[in-house]
């Protein structure tokens, strides 16, 4: 019984920290709108241009238009870009002494990290809703049944948590905002390009394929593409497994890193 109440408390604390983020978004939505610009450009300019290139469209699954193929990739990208810079917030909060204040509450370290990761998930969800609406405006045909949308949101939350935890783990090593900014830039693009987000794995240079295979983002995009475009759910369990495992791994690393960050 004691274990059960500890577990309940652990998640309750994480949800409180996520609630804080949600309340902040409620007071100030400008960030959500500003962050819509980039995915809009990817879809409306990059997507529409690339869909005219027949070499690209030849390799994507049959019966999919390029925009259908790409929308899940842009969904992943918009959440990824929010999450990967999440460590900067934590460094900032450490510099301000906010982190010490949070750590002086009874909440455990790893529940704080989980809470922060969930906060990234909360932001990711808002981002995802915006991208889906944008795609619908561009008349991209997506599977819109409630269950697959629910699946997409779960994936988005996991994706945000996964990379927010990675970002926080890195932040605990580099410890300054400036360096964190640089590292964020250095890792986002490779993660994004070495995945099937905007082109099929089949046309990638062969040396990059092994990277794509260990890149959690590949599985994220694959899962969302299955749910939103192809409707073929056979690889979904594997996708979930990989994303969940990566999230737990980074969560543990970030929790361990937090100890280093305050001492």
């Amino acid at each position, binding site marked *: 019984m004691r274990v059960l109440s500890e577990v309940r408390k652990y998640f309750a604390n994480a949800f*409180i920290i996520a609630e804080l983020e949600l309340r902040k978004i409620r007071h100030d939505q400008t960030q959500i709108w500003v962050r819509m610009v980039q995915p809009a450009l990817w879809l409306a300019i990059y997507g529409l241009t690339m869909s005219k290139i027949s070499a690209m469209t030849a390799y994507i699954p049959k019966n999919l238009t390029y925009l259908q193929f790409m929308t899940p990739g842009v969904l992943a990208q918009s959440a990824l870009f929010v999450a990967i810079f999440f460590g900067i917030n934590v460094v900032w909060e450490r510099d301000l002494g906010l982190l010490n204040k949070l750590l002086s509450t*009874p909440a455990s370290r790893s529940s704080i990290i989980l809470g922060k990761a969930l906060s990234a998930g909360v932001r990711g969800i808002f981002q995802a809703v915006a991208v889906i609406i944008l795609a619908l405006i561009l008349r991209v045909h997506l599977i819109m049944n409630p269950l697959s949308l629910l699946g997409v949101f779960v994936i988005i939350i996991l994706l945000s948590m996964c990379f927010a935890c990675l970002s926080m783990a890195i932040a605990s090593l580099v410890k300054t905002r400036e360096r964190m900014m640089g590292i964020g830039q250095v890792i986002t693009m490779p993660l994004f390009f070495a995945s099937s987000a905007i082109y099929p794995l089949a046309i990638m240079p062969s040396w990059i394929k092994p990277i794509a295979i260990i890149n959690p983002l590949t599985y994220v995009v694959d899962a969302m593409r299955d749910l939103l475009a192809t409707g073929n759910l056979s690889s979904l369990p594997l996708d979930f497994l990989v994303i969940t495992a990566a999230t737990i791994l980074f969560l543990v690393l970030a929790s361990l890193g937090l100890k280093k960050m*305050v001492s």
Partner: protein
Amino acid sequence: MEEKAIVVQNLVKQYPKVRAVDDVSFSVDKGEIFGLLGPNGAGKTTTIRVLLTLIPPTSGETLIYNINTAKNSEDVRRICGYVPQDVSADGDLTSYENVLISAKLYGMPPKERKQRIQEVLNFLELTDRENDMVNTFSGGMMRRLEIAQALVNRPKVLFLDEPSIGLDPNARRIIWGLIKKLRDEFNTTIMMTTHDMGEADELCDRIGIMNRGHLATLGKPAELKAAVGGDIITINSSNPGCFQKLKEMGYSTIANSPDGHCDLVVNNGETLIPQLLEGLKSRGVMVESVSLKKPTLDDVFLKYTGARIEEGDTFAETRRARRAFTRRS
């Protein structure tokens, strides 16, 4: 023996390059306001961090209400409140929400929550601003809100890091009043750090001065002032021999006097000055000015830490302190 609120026993905290806290022992009674003073880098913050279970001690033992901070850290955090030096209220939320989040993190049952938050906002006179965004608040209001956040759980021990830094004199008075009221009405034990000796003198029942990781002295402000040895006469003279001549006359000057000033510690300074001037004149020393000062905590501080207040400051600490200052004012 009565149970103490805080016990620190042979505390050592070793970092790879420095020994931040080196064999420090002291205890704080329940309901006491205890001030920890010292230059930056003296080990105050490290001591507080160990007590708040943020970092583990290298050796030694710290207890809060008889709970070992290293072993039962969660139980310790449950009965403590902490107000950091920097602005720590969330500007993007209302003051009610700030306190609400704290209440939730301290695991307060939903039934009590609303009433408790109202109580604490009322205590800190923030009720009329409870639904306003915190980023519109003045420094003093922000500080009050942060104290409200720390108090909502009714902590037995409250840690205040530089409670009035960057506040105008008026706001500072209000905060001081609150701290006293808190102790008088709820018997809360308060441990604070400050660089403001006036503040320490005004509020603290006892004071510990730390320097280079050691506890240099400990006592009631009045005792400490008396121990500095009465009044201080400062003699200003461009004559380089002044220092020597005073020695010849049998007076001891206190350490670290900058050139050109000689500080003497004496009793009944008023009656001694004429005698002193006479003596110096007969030895050929020209005195430009003389001043008499009754001891303050500043003198106690200088005596135990030397005049090198700035020396211990690291870049990060200075930046933090200045930023805290500008953000509040």
